[in-house]
């Protein structure tokens, strides 16, 4: 009996083997076309990550040796290659928020390789067309230095010159200030005055000594705070001072940065974290400056109240937290209704958004089933519209 019906069993089994995994094709198509594995990731580049970029085309050496980008534009251009390398498996529609360093203050040291004491001569003023034998703007001093010296990094000039500032004194004053050439340009360096040496009990020789090493940062903070009371966080100033090292008196330069309350000596590049967003489109990671968010409970309350809790759609949304997008429903939210609601929300939430700013809002809809849906809006001169690529 078994053998007589064996064909049937074999046929049954064969049928099964042929059609065992009904979704294989669907999975493949999904992987190829739209999403596959999609994710929203947030990453912060580590030193190792920067080093990994050494092999990528067009990456400047400071990126992989000093771990920073020149600015967000450079990062926006270079990071897609990195994301393509490290996250090739994430499908279209994936979103990456990448935090990296951009350089705020480059620092190549404050060694004084060449020290020049110079007093500006009458001829110098004449050569530069200053008829009164003085400077009357700080920029003129920089012009002079550029004119006078064909210099290299590390040149320190202590310059004595005639300066006219009508707002301070009615006549020309003689001043002596430091200027330090670093990062390709002349920088003003505040020269510590006799009054400060006196303050720190170093007015006998008007210099600091090795005994001051521990205190110098505090002295410098005091001096610059006093000199630049209106400094804002991130300001960088150079300071020039005399220093006796036990055998010689040197004229040293330090760079300091203001953090909002104190000045601190810069000893390395000053880097700043910066975050850019990228999204994967058509198989490639591209910068995406869209602000993405999911409607919070507060956002939902705002929209429901904006629509009116006594209206069908508003009340229904307040109740269920989902937009009913069935046009047959009494609580129907048409695409136009949603646009109006999101516009109102964005104007409330981001009143200072600039033209062309895009927002991707994720919200819950009900179309017979409850599910997530997203809309991308862009701000135009005429208000928000749906963004279409």
């Amino acid at each position: 009996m078994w053998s007589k019906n064996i064909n049937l069993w074999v046929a049954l089994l064969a049928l099964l083997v042929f059609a065992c995994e009904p979704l294989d094709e669907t999975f493949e198509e999904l992987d190829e076309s739209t999403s596959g594995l999609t994710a929203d990731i947030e990453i912060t580049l580590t030193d190792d990550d920067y080093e990994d970029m050494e092999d990528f085309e067009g990456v400047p050496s400071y990126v992989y040796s000093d771990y920073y980008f020149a600015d967000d534009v450079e990062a926006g251009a270079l990071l897609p290659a990195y994301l393509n390398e490290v996250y090739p498996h994430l499908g279209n529609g994936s979103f990456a928020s990448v935090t990296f360093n951009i350089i705020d203050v480059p620092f190549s040291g404050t060694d004084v390789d060449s020290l020049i004491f110079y007093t500006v001569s009458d001829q110098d003023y004449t050569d530069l067309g200053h008829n009164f034998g003085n400077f009357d703007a700080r920029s003129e001093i920089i012009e002079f230095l550029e004119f006078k010296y064909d210099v290299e990094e590390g040149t320190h000039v202590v310059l004595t010159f005639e300066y006219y500032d009508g707002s301070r004194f009615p006549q020309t004053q003689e001043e002596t200030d430091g200027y330090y050439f670093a990062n390709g340009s002349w920088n003003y360096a505040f020269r510590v005055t006799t009054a400060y040496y006196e303050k720190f009990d170093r007015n006998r020789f008007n210099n600091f000594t090795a005994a001051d090493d521990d205190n110098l940062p505090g002295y410098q903070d005091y001096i610059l705070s006093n000199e630049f009371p209106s400094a804002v966080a991130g300001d960088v100033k150079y300071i020039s001072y005399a220093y006796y090292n036990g055998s010689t008196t040197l004229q040293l330069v330090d760079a300091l940065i203001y953090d909002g309350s104190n000045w601190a000596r810069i000893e390395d590049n000053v880097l700043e974290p910066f975050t850019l967003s990228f999204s994967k489109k058509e198989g490639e990671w591209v910068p995406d400056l869209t602000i993405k968010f999911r409607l919070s409970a507060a956002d939902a309350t705002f929209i429901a109240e904006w629509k009116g809790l006594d209206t069908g759609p508003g009340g229904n949304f307040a109740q269920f937290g989902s937009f009913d997008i069935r046009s047959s429903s009494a609580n129907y939210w048409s695409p136009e209704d949603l646009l109006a609601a999101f516009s109102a929300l964005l104007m409330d939430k981001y009143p200072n958004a600039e033209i062309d700013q895009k927002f991707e809002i994720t919200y819950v809809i009900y179309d017979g089933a409850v599910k997530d849906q997203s809309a991308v809006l862009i701000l135009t001169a005429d208000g928000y519209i749906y963004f279409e690529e």
Partner: protein
Amino acid sequence: MRKTLRNYLMIATMLLASVVTFAQSRITGRVIDSETQEGLPGASVVQKGTTNGTITDLNGDFSLTVDDNVATVVISFVGFQTVEKTINLSETQSLGSITLAPGANELSPLEILGSVAVDRKTPVAVSTIRLEQIEENASNQEFPELLKTTPGVYATKTGGGYGDSRINVRGFNSVNVAVLINGVPVNDMENGRVYWSNWAGLTDVTTTMQVQRGLGASKVAVPSIGGTINILTRTTEADKGGDAYTGIGNDGYRKTAFSLSTGLTESGWAVSVQGAKIEGEGWADGTQFLGYNYFFNVSKMIGDNHTLSLTGFGAPQRHGQRQNRQSIATFRNAPQGLRYNADWGYRNGQVVHVEDNFYHKPQFSLNHYWTINQKSELSTAVYASVGTGGGGGFQNRDISFGDYRIGGQYGPYDLDAIVEENQSSADGRALAFLRASRNDHKWYGVLSTYTNKLTSKLNVLAGIDGRYYQGIHFTEVTDLLGADYALDDSDINNPNAVLKAGDKYSYYNDGIVLWQGGFVQGEYTDGPLSAFVSLAASNTSYKRIDYFQYLPGDQETDFQNYFGFQTKGGANYNLTRNHNVFANLGYFEKAPDFDAVFQNFRNDINTDAENQKITSFEIGYGYRSANFSANANLYRTSWRDRTFTRSFQGQEGELFYANILGVNALHQGLELDFSYKPSKKLSINGMASFGDWTWQDNVDGVNIFDENQNQIGTISTLYIGGLKVGDAAQTTAAIAASYDIVEDFQIGLTFNHYSNLYAEYDPTDRTTETLEGEQAWEVPAYNLLDARVRYDFKIGTLDASVFGNVQNIFDVEYISDAFDGDSDGDGIGDAGGAAVYFGVGRTWTSGIKISF
């Protein structure tokens, strides 16, 4: 052919009336179904001319004690031709095997109430699942799934929660499929849906399930557009005894069940009770469940002509749900894989079913069977059912549940974190809490059928169907999650309500439905021809009471009345002993449902709501022989004017309604099934079903004007012409084989195929011209294989059976339910945009049943 056939109940009632006799001789035998060559359980065996009788056990075996030396026994069963055998007990005490052939017989009173269809007589397409098949296949499957090997049926577990399964018949969902339990309609009186979770576990007490596709045999007006599912439970057990069952399964599934019958007591009563407890973790995450079911029947015969029978059953349950469908990508990305469920969480290390379902709907029915005289009978059922329960969920206020998950986006809800937020709320209010949407109801009804044999050929049935229904709908706070109270301002009679757990909020309204129905049916039988004509009419009255949106005195609407009717007729002709043909034709109008009458979930009355109109036509052919039977039928059901209403606000704020006609669907197809028993050991059943279900023409857009000719709204053109109906596989096929490897050891395999399944969508949302003719996403076809074994043996003198079942034996990954959606922006539904439920993977159960 007019021998009286008795079902269990009638046997019992006759036994009640019998005098106690002294056992002298015992007749034994086995009743065999000629179609399947298997024992026929539940057949009645009665000594002719007496009220002495019994019924066959699960194997078809019986033994009957008689006083006489020569006795004639009458062996009968619903849907089979009655056989009489005479035995001389001085010669032998065994009747051996008695084969019953399918054929027309008179129905028992319960079956008349229940509108059971009879093979080769009732001209409708029908599939019947009997006790033995239910017992062998039940496992962890629910009612709808037991029917998956019958044509025209698409059943799934939806999210996989206990009781969450659904069924579509001929492409129509439960709103358009009538479900009757012992003849009592159970479709929701307001929206027409069937909530199978109300009946989860009741498979244990089901003796027969019958799917009548298309118009069906129901005499009462029921929404039988797709078909009618008749469920007959146990009634009275004639013999003293019972059985016990214990079983286990995948994911902590445990089931314990028992049944007991007193048999006949000296005082003439018979009582049967049954109970079960079912629990488990559920295949999908967070779908733990605990369910019970109970059943009892008490019968008493009063005099010779009256029988009273009280039946009660219910299946209280609570289970975690997988409420929300997800994209395919979500399931693939989730570390839990296809078991992923977004709708549950943890609190204090305990699982909390944020989305859950709990319901208990006990149903009691007092049936009275009155044999008025030789020619007429009256069967009446008075029933009451009180449903309590609903579905849990979350309520966001100032914070959002979705922001609190343990371990990332695929993790369960972090309810401890929400409790912490609530406890730190400035004024003690809940920032978010748990709620339940409650849908309680009270339902009372009477169903009565009078039968009169006017002549030997003509039978007339007439009856009434009266129902009172009160649905009670509200949302309640179930758990404040550590907060002191929650705030709500949706009740105008209690603005700024401060809510505690158990308080109602958001909405609170009642729906009252009155139903007055009557029907009359004529049945004509003449030799090989049987025919019927029937007319049923009903008045549906709706009233809405809204306690939240209206002030006292203004909360109740008047009753709104809608008249519906159905008329149908058909004939069956038995060409030969082997061949029969049938045809039926029907037209009916169905009253609009509650929400079409009361718009916007308010007391806004749309007085002109339109009836839906259904025309159905069907022809069929049947073949019967000793070891092979087959059926083929063609159907064409036209569903016209599907309810499609809109309301618009006029300039003064007054409401206007548009009732748009013309949303029409045509469901037609071919259904085949066969049963083949080439040997005593092997039997094969198969079916194939080819549907062609499409929406018809586009529906032109219209502008809506008020009486001053101000345009107040527009209804867009619906581009639905030629769209395939979604949500059910249009092509299905199944082959089931069972084989007795050795005596009492049987294995079975069931193979199911599903294709032409389109994602669900609402045709009234198809308003974009450029998408005209674009089908919803087609869900990939899939095949599943189930296997089972059964072993019967003896423990001492007790009969025992061991069952083992494996569903989806190859652990196939497939999508059973999809809602259409677009992911790439072209507006056309695709795999990326669909929100789906994956079908459950491999599951199994195993159990042992001991009868005593």
